């Protein structure tokens, strides 16, 4: 059998997830068959591996995935993995059958089975993982899917709270496990279990060993509900019973002890392990057993009993002797079998009687003798009654407590005595389960008159209890091989010889069993005294209370933090953002290698013109800020600043920029003036002085940072990367205006993107303003003045002139300052003047331009120019150029890039005019001011 079949084994349940979701449309029976098919397929894939693994083989499969991170899809199947895979799929199959009967008929089951299969897949992944990171990933899948399953009846608040609690506890443990695994891989030098398991001595001697151990144990203890993390499990009983039978007896809670068993060769056999694992197991063992007896809820009793048995398994693994580990594996098997059957039986009782409260149940043996018999046998196994499987592993446990190497002298009696006491408690709660449910006088308080369940609903219990008996009577024959193989995988060494038999002669363990049985029954008879005592000194379940308190504190703190950081206010967000940026910048400056702010270059001589420019700029900028509430005046100041910037461009050898800035400035100011009609002309001061000082400080720091950056840049040597563009501009691009050649040729693709963005902004504006009706502010009424005649008369002949100028600017753009952007802006301004002079109705009637189409046409031309170069077998946007000499105009150079520039020009015209006309059209559909703000 190819190792790659392991991947198929792992995939089978996951593939079942979509399958059952599809099948549920055809009915719940189909969904059930689909889920059963997925489980059965897994078993079928597993079957061929069995004999090889039972003979001590380990199958390993490896697919490289992210080799540089040590992440391979690597799976292994050894004895322990086989045992768990068998439990997951086998019991899973029974649960699928049971759930079909248990869940109400109006449940279509698809969702349930999908979650169940996802969980089974995650659990298989944990059992089969060879790579430790993969193990953690699947570990988290089991946490998440168990969260979903516990909250399956999500209408119930109890279920939701329980699910959240389980997720918080097991998920938190998963994080600790992840940290532990990362450290372990760091110490052992590999993520592969095969390698890590062989390096136990290296890990145990490492200084990080205690840290690794505690982290891994946190993962295991939270998952396996060990004290003090046990509290999520009883709450998780809010889940449908099939979930409890599957997750909370046989699989999910066993993942924790699986982890202990898995890492046994690496982490165990130290004193720290004995203290932590053995100690936690012992406390959980006896605490769970004690509380189980006090529970009135059938499932609550079983949940605490599960906690207790998981404590027993943990204790066994913590005892650090090989035979104790064998006993732990044996008890994993036995507990899975009898506890699953007990949960299923509890579900049947709940289903048939309408309650699981043992105070209301009673005398059920008369009504359902067959189910009762089965449940009594399983409960006997739980109590450790001879001839049943639970007895065998408990007996092995007793043997291991006697003469344990760590307990000698008088202490040699302490451990057996403790074991007997815990055994007594187990007998007591098992006795309560059997006696109160099946025998004590019927209270006639049951919501329904019970009867035997349907045959198929009971079948899972039949099968499991048959296994209880078979294992109990013929242990060597039934579980001997798998127990040996799994124990060998746990110990990674030869298993000490052991004999599974129901009779070992009269010896100490037998005496302890007898004492536990008799003592437990006596204790049960005297239980009312205990209940009274317990009611008087009601112990608070401290860890659950602590969890809930911590949860509420975290919730409260998160809300406070949110309230502090999130004032639902954009200025606050911006201020926070700015503050962080300033801090980051200062931090980067501080932590960089120390160097002076000023670089080696000379600062350069100032001249009067620059001083005047800077002074004007300062007046413009500061005036805008100081008078920003008087909006019209602020706008005038701002335009001064813009003008100085254009002049600066002109002065420092950037004529194209100066022209662009100047024309954009004009258009922007007009746009803002038009917008001001609908905004208050003057605003009141509403920010508190403290807020204003804060903003001023932030802004000042930001400005200081930018100034420092600029100064540092200007005083440092500089090596241009434009050499290629300058050298190739005339020969390659056919133009002396390098800026324009860069725009339309070298970086034409960027420009295409930029005009696309411009077009999008204009279309966005169109969409935002389309149909908008606003109330004009500004003194309310529209001016009744006619449009000034002189202006109108002057503007009409100016249009053709302006167009001629812009054509000139456009044509010469490749060699002299100009080009599509500037030409487009000039035409747009000329058109705009017609609107200003004649009014929008006048201009619209004459121009009849649909600017959205102009936009589209421009983009199309630019795009077509680019595509045309493909016709010549050249890359997108390759340009060609040559000279033409039309009459009158004179000779000038023409490049194919000019067509592209035309597209740019049209997009600019379209965008600017669309913006201005949309704003102008607002005036045509104004609301009367009286209807607006009073």
């Amino acid at each position, binding site marked *: 059998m190819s190792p790659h079949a392991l991947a198929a084994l792992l995939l089978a349940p996951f593939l079942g997830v979509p399958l059952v979701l599809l099948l549920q449309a055809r009915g719940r029976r189909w969904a059930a068959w689909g889920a059963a098919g997925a489980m059965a397929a897994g078993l079928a894939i597993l079957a061929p591996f069995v004999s090889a693994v039972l003979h001590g083989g380990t199958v390993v499969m490896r697919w490289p995935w992210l080799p540089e991170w040590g992440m391979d899809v690597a799976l292994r199947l050894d004895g322990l993995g086989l045992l768990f895979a068998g439990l997951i799929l086998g019991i899973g199959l029974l649960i699928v059958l049971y759930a079909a009967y248990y869940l109400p008929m109006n449940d279509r089951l698809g969702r349930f089975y999908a979650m169940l299969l996802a969980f089974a897949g995650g659990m298989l992944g944990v059992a089969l993982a060879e790579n430790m990171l993969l193990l953690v990933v699947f570990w988290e899948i089991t946490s998440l899917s168990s969260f979903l399953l516990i909250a399956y009846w999500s209408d119930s608040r109890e279920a939701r709270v329980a699910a959240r609690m389980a997720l918080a506890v097991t998920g938190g443990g998963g994080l600790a496990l992840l940290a532990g695994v990362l450290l372990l891989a760091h110490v052992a030098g590999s993520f592969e279990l095969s390698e890590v398991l062989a390096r136990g001595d290296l890990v145990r001697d490492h200084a990080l060993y205690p840290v690794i151990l505690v982290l891994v144990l946190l993962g295991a203890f939270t998952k396996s509900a060990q004290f003090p993390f046990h509290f999520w499990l009883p709450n998780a009983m809010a889940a449908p019973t099939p979930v409890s039978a599957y997750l909370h007896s046989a699989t999910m809670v066993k993942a924790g002890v699986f982890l202990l068993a898995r890492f046994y060769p690496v982490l165990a056999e130290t004193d720290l392990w004995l203290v932590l694992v053995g100690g936690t197991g012992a406390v959980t063992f006896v605490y769970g057993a004690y509380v189980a007896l006090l529970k009135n809820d059938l499932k609550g009793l079983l949940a605490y009993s599960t906690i207790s048995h998981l404590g027993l398994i943990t204790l066994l693994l913590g005892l650090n002797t090989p035979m104790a580990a064998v006993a732990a594996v044996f008890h994993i098997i036995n507990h899975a079998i009898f506890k699953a059957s007990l949960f299923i039986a509890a579900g049947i009782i709940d289903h048939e009687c309408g309650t699981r409260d043992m105070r209301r149940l009673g005398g059920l043996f008369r009504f359902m003798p067959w189910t009762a018999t089965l449940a009594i046998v399983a409960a006997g196994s739980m109590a450790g009654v001879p001839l049943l499987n639970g007895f065998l592993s408990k007996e092995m446990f007793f043997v291991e407590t006697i003469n344990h190497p760590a307990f000698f002298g008088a202490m040699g009696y302490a451990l057996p005595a403790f074991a007997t006491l815990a055994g007594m408690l187990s007998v007591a709660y098992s006795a309560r389960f059997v006696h109160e449910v099946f025998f004590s006088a019927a209270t006639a308080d049951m919501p329904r008159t019970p009867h035997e369940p349907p045959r198929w609903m009971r079948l899972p219990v039949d099968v499991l209890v048959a296994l209880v008996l078979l294992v109990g009577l013929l242990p060597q024959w039934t579980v001997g091989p798998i127990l040996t193989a799994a124990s060998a995988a746990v110990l990674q060494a030869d298993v000490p010889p052991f004999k599974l038999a129901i009779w070992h002669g009269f010896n100490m363990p037998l005496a302890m069993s007898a004492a536990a049985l008799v003592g437990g029954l006596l204790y049960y008879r005297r239980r009312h005294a205990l209940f009274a005592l317990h009611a008087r000194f009601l112990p608070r379940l401290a860890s659950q209370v602590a969890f809930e308190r911590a949860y509420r504190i975290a919730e409260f703190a998160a809300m406070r933090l949110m309230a502090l950081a999130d004032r639902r206010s954009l200025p606050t967000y911006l201020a926070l953002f700015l503050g962080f940026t300033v801090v980051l910048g200062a931090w980067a400056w501080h932590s960089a290698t120390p160097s002076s702010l000023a670089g080696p270059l000379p600062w350069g001589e100032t001249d009067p013109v620059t001083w005047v420019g800077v002074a004007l700029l300062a007046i413009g900028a500061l005036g805008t800020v100081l008078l920003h509430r008087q909006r019209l005046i602020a706008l005038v100041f701002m335009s001064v600043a813009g003008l100085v910037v254009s002049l600066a461009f002109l002065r420092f050898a950037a004529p194209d920029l100066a022209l662009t800035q100047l024309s954009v400035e004009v258009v922007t100011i007009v746009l803002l003036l038009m917008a001001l009609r609908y905004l208050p002309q003057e605003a009141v001061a509403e920010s508190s002085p403290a807020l204003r000082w804060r903003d001023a400080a932030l802004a000042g720091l930001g400005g*200081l940072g930018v100034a420092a950056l600029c100064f540092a840049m200007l005083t440092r040597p500089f090596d241009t990367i434009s050499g290629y563009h300058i050298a190739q501009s005339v020969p390659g691009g056919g133009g002396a205006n390098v800026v324009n050649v860069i725009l339309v040729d070298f970086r034409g693709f960027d420009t295409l993107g930029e005009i696309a963005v411009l077009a999008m902004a204009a279309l966005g504006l169109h969409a935002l*303003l389309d149909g*908008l009706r606003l109330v004009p502010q500004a003194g309310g009424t529209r001016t009744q003045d006619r449009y000034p005649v002189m202006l109108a008369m002057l503007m009409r002949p100016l249009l053709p002139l302006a167009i001629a100028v812009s054509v000139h600017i456009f044509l010469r753009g490749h060699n002299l300052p100009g080009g599509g952007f500037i030409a487009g802006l000039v035409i747009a301004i000329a058109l705009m003047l017609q609107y200003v002079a004649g009014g929008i109705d006048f201009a619209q009637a004459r121009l009849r331009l649909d600017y959205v189409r102009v936009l589209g046409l421009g983009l199309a031309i630019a795009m077509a120019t680019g595509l045309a170069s493909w016709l010549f077998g050249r890359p997108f946007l390759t340009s060609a150029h040559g000279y033409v000499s039309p009459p009158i105009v004179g000779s000038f150079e023409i490049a194919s890039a000019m067509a592209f520039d035309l597209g740019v020009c049209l997009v600019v015209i379209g965008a600017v005019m669309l913006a201005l006309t949309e704003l102008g059209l607002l005036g045509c559909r104004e609301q009367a001011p009286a209807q607006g703000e009073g």
Partner: protein
Amino acid sequence: MALLVSAAIGLLTACGLYLLLRPRVFSVILGLTLLSYAVNALIFLGGRLSATAAPLALPGAVGLADPLPQALVLTAIVIGFGMTAYLVALALRAKGETGTDHVDGAPPTDTPPGRAE
């Protein structure tokens, strides 16, 4: 010269940032415009200052001004206009929807929610 120009750009930035933090849309638009002046000028200065550089690659021209930052800034100016226009539209639309020109869509209330006045 370097110090003077840097100070001018720093001042523009600071004024732009302060206006950006104001609670009314019109101030924010003014602030953004000032800020884009500053940013454009900063990028432009990436090609260094020279009042004597040749702007065009005409025959005989030496010491050409760096054209790359200029090309970047040229498109930035035009896109900046697109952004301003879009913001104006957004502000007007918000005014139409909420009836206020406050950036948060509602004037601030002095008392935090949940506390009686």
